[in-house]
């Protein structure tokens, strides 16, 4: 089935949504830090895809990277409208039972990622959390692979510094 047929057939589109919406939602959640905003952005992305089916060319790349790129633009637009970044909210955190040290380390890392500037945060989210390749991240954020590598390097340096200061406060290596 071609892309044109897939996007116009209800069953195929539902299958496509179920396959690709988690990555879009997770990316939006990690970037916005709010489940409601992430749900809105996910819905916006797929509604946009329904209305602009010809915008995606399967020959040019993966659909998931394309959808993340669309989600990124919706998030940027939302931030431009809001003129503020939404910090990670308590409601978005899935608190699980684990030792205090581990809890502290994960929470510190989460807070450090949330504090990253968006262009560094998105590469960390896509590469380290989502597990995409450099090429897929580059396609999603619309830049060269080398740029992704350098942004990731700087982001990790920033995270390391943040976690180091946290570790000193806790007296325990993270």
């Amino acid at each position, binding site marked *: 089935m071609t892309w044109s047929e897939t996007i116009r057939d209800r069953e195929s*589109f539902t299958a496509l*949504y179920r396959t690709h919406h988690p990555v879009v939602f997770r990316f939006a959640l990690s970037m916005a830090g709010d489940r409601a905003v992430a*749900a809105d952005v*996910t819905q916006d992305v*797929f*509604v946009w895809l329904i209305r602009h089916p010809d915008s995606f060319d399967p020959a040019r790349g993966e659909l998931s990277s394309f959808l993340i790129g669309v989600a990124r633009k919706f998030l940027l637009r939302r931030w431009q409208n809001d003129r503020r970044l939404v910090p990670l909210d308590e409601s978005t955190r899935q608190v699980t039972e684990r030792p205090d040290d581990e809890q502290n380390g994960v929470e510190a890392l989460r807070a450090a990622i949330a504090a990253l500037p968006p262009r560094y945060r998105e590469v960390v989210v896509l590469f380290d959390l989502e597990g995409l390749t450099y090429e897929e991240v580059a396609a999603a954020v619309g830049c060269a692979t080398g740029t992704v590598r350098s942004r990731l390097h700087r982001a990790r340096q920033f995270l390391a510094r943040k976690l180091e200061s946290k570790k000193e406060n806790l007296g325990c290596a993270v």
Partner: protein
Amino acid sequence: MTCPEPDPMAILAAEHRAARAPTGVEWAVQAEFDAVRRLRRRGRAAAGAAIAAMLVAGAFLARERPTRSPVAVKTVAPQPPGLGKAAAPVMKPPPRKRSLVRHENLPRQSAGEPFVAIPYTVPLAPEERATMVRITLSPAAIAAVGFPLPAIDPGNDTLADVLVGEDGRAHAIRIVADSNFR
């Protein structure tokens, strides 16, 4: 001192991958899909109906349009204004009438006379339909298109039949015989 513990990034990644969008999003997206599909179907139906209506209207108009006999047009070379052959006697001007456009049901005093092609206009194509309208022309307007003019009173308007092509442009003219111009 180092604490033996799992990688926080791995734990965070596992939590990250467990996140799922609310089911309401899927319903909303499917509703939008159905709405767009309905709109596309309606658009296609409307376009089909419009095309069918245009075809029917075109066929109807083609059947109803009367065929006209070709009008004889005599081509003359343009002459500069004021170089007419003979000077006509000066007559008393009638009351001036402006912008009178009359249609073909007027009496045709000069029906036998040929039309004279207006210089520098594209001639009528053989299959092109033309409409004849009767208008009041001032001698200045006739002179402006390069017709030979007798020396007459410039205020003396005359009646003329004009052939108007499908493009709305005048192609040929003939002066009505019993008008004051002759």
